[in-house]
């Protein structure tokens, strides 16, 4: 098997995650692959995207000539506002997050542990500049946390692990993980496979997971 051709692409991971977002949900998208989810709302559904820098009703990238440098998302990328959108300040925006008004947040990850701990802000390297952004607020406040991430690091280390070795963003917060290899739920019994990406079998994904994976 060749890692380059099996499994889901970054866009396919985002598209797969989008299938699990119900009609009418309020959703916050983290920086990186999660930003792509905005493009893949299934037909017939209406989903309202929140960006913590002060916009509810975030749309996709603007067309050429329609950009406003003062209309950006949390990743500081140019975006649009849909009809029915609303702007507000940062404290009101995080009131939506902390007050459990956002239904789903889709985040990237460095590591996820089998009990749902998330590490996505620091490797703990004392020489690195620590930077946390809104990740800790999101995992503490949003009702359901999804993660989209490559199944392994570039050097091949597992990101789904028994216990996170990196500093945590939040404890027992992740519900479901979308990787290039499949969809995995965090259950009371640990990681449980939900779905395999094309060309991936159970042994393949288990071999790349840092702890036991329950079969679907």
């Amino acid at each position: 098997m060749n890692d380059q051709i099996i499994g889901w692409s970054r866009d396919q991971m985002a598209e797969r995650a989008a299938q699990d977002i119900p009609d009418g949900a309020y959703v916050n998208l983290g920086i990186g692959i999660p930003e792509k989810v905005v493009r893949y709302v299934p037909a017939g559904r209406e989903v309202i995207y929140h960006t913590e820098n002060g916009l509810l009703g975030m749309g996709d990238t603007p067309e050429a000539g329609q950009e406003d440098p003062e209309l950006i998302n949390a990743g500081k990328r140019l975006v649009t506002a849909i009809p029915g959108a609303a702007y507000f300040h940062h404290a009101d925006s995080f009131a939506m997050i902390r007050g459990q008004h956002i239904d789903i947040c889709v985040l990237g990850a460095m590591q996820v542990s089998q009990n749902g701990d998330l590490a996505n802000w620091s490797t703990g390297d004392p020489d690195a500049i620590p930077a946390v952004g809104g990740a800790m607020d999101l995992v503490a406040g949003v009702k359901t946390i999804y993660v989209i991430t490559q199944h392994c690091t570039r050097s091949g280390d597992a990101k789904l692990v028994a216990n996170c070795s990196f500093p945590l963003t939040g404890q027992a917060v992740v519900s479901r993980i979308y990787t290039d290899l499949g969809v995995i739920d965090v259950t009371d019994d640990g990681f449980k496979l939900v779905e395999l990406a094309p060309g991936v079998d159970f042994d393949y994904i288990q071999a790349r997971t840092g702890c036991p994976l329950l079969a679907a």
Partner: protein
Amino acid sequence: MINKQISSIHEAVADIHDGATVMIGGFGEAGSPIELIHALIDQGAKNLTVINNNTGSGHVGLAALIENKRVAKMICSFPRTANSTVFPELYKSGNIELELVPQGTLAERIRAGGAGIPAFYTATSVGTPLCEGKEIRAINGRDYVLEYGLKADFSLIKCLKADRYGNLIYNKTARNFAPIMAMAATTAIVQTKEFVEIGDLDPEIIVTPGIFVDRVVIVANPLLESDLVKAERSYP
């Protein structure tokens, strides 16, 4: 008569003293009051504590203020972004202090400072290294960390329209931290694209009522940080 308009950006920032705590609006370049920041560089105040979500980009605006060694301490949530090299270098060499605060806690601490709330509890950061040394309290069965309100001597913010009372409205996501920073600073200094007559702003749509604003200066055509970064400009 109340007239908060100041004729020049230099006059607007003239009394910012060495050692002052300064909140600077903006999330990335959206809402960044770049002309006020440059006027502060010209003015020379140093040993500042600066509160902003980030640490600026390139060698202009907030990054230039840091590069010119005016900032002793940054309070922010995300000190590294694309094109930010100034802060990381000073930080690694031990020449600038960092207080890292989760973004929502930062926003709420500023709002609390402005609203006269000295401290509050939040679930954010519980169980992470960022709550180490802080008071944890269980309320209704969940653990929360005690966080304190943040105030500042000055805030520098940018808006779309202002009147002589200091009533403000903003443009899109450039609103971000500005309304709460106006509340939390002893002296709130605002650069506006437009200055309008009293009564031109509908009382139903004013985002920042004038009570929170002290000085308004017109900067009709503000520079864009991203343009300056692209052109590899540095300030001064």
